[in-house]
């Protein structure tokens, strides 16, 4: 980066085998600027087949910024000559990312009052970003998205009666193709937000972005797995569906019907369930032998209970 004389305080914040997040400070003269490096080491590129790659992610974050979405400003995109794999350097935004803290810590009690509304409004802004030039993103009309998820279930190879029943439930309810497909963040949930005591500061992790039915983002936000124990606050464990949708309308989004949102909530639980169960072979094959990976695989059952609450609710 031009003008930088040195870096200091480099430390790894998080990340598994496929992606790393680093914090560091860049020195410009006697001024230190806190920054974040997100990078995918070369060896693991392409493992997560749905991901768009960090260079594309950086581009989307730039567009989101222009659309008024709170995001960290991109400072630099890694070039092949850097020999560091794919990635980018972005502005460091102070705040909390841990979903459990955002949902339960008293420090965020005030922020929680308006957070669902802010998330709805932000989602609406994301969905206004023009898609014509986003040719690198896959297009997923609802029907194609359903077929793809079902195909993943079938190749996964482990039959799970609850998943089979959830697929039949969804199959009868696939939303009609929207008039125009929108940019979908693809991983818009508590855990991918930076939140301060004052509220929403940034939306992170754009690597699963695609073109599709925008309501998928709202449904994903309400999936049980992202409520961090606060199961009566469907929106991320911090708010109501009503607040989320009111924010969405305030941001210019077309409010979905209850059934439309429920479809994407069920779809989201099932999607996360398949992502979890898909980690079992990744662990067992040795591709990622970490205990973390094994334990995420064992989270598939949490989605079964959430799915049953939608499709076989007890009276």
């Amino acid at each position, binding site marked *: 980066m031009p003008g930088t004389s040195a870096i200091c305080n480099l430390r790894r914040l998080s990340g598994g085998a496929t992606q790393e997040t680093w914090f560091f400070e860049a020195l410009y003269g006697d001024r230190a600027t806190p920054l974040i490096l997100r990078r995918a080491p070369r060896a693991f590129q392409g493992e997560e087949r749905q991901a768009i790659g960090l260079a594309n992610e950086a581009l989307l974050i730039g567009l989101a910024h222009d659309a008024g979405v709170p995001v960290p400003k991109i400072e630099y995109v890694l070039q092949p000559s850097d020999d560091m794999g794919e990635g980018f350097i972005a502005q460091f935004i102070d705040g909390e990312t841990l979903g459990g803290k955002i949902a339960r810590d008293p420090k965020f009690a005030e922020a929680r009052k308006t957070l669902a509304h802010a998330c709805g409004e932000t989602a609406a802004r994301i969905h206004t970003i023009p898609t014509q030039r986003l040719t690198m993103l896959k297009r997923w009309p609802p029907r194609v998205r359903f077929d793809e998820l079902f195909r993943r279930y079938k190749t996964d190879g482990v039959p799970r009666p609850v998943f089979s029943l959830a697929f039949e439930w969804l199959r009868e309810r696939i939303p009609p193709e929207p008039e125009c497909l929108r940019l979908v963040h693809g991983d818009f949930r508590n855990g991918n937000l930076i939140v301060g005591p004052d509220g929403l500061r940034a939306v992170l992790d754009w690597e699963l972005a695609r073109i599709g039915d925008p309501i998928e983002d709202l449904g994903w936000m309400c999936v049980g797995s992202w409520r961090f124990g606060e199961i009566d606050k469907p929106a991320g464990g911090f708010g109501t569906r009503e607040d989320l949708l009111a924010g969405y309308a305030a941001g210019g989004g077309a409010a979905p019907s209850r059934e439309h949102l429920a479809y994407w909530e069920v779809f989201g639980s099932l999607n996360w369930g398949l992502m979890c169960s898909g980690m079992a072979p990744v662990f067992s094959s040795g591709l990622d032998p970490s205990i973390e990976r094994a334990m995420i695989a064992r989270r598939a059952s949490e989605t*079964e209970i959430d799915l049953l*609450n939608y499709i076989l609710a007890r009276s």
Partner: protein
Amino acid sequence: MQDKPPPDEILAAIARLMREELLPQMSGRSAFMLRVAANAVDLVQRQIALAAASDEEERARLITLLHHDGDLAQLNAELCAAIENGEIRTETPGLAEHLWTTTRAKLAVDQPNYAAYRRLANPPKE
């Protein structure tokens, strides 16, 4: 016959060592990974304690639903196929109870602290 102490007691001792002695010495990512590992040891303990009985009960229910004998994996595959081709539906007697009970048994091993699971055991008072 293997000698004592039994696996569950040894695993409990490992989890204790990890939490009480090692964890206080760790920080950051190492502490996180150690906590995950201790949770994994607990999960294995619960599976050793619970899975044999719950698997047998699951198999018995599947035999009733499908009207024939088989091993657990095979019967589950068959139930999935029956659901997908419409032979067994949401309203089929016994299906809902079977799925709820089976899923509960999984959560009892995987995540007994998952809020939706805890609520099944202790529904909120009206």
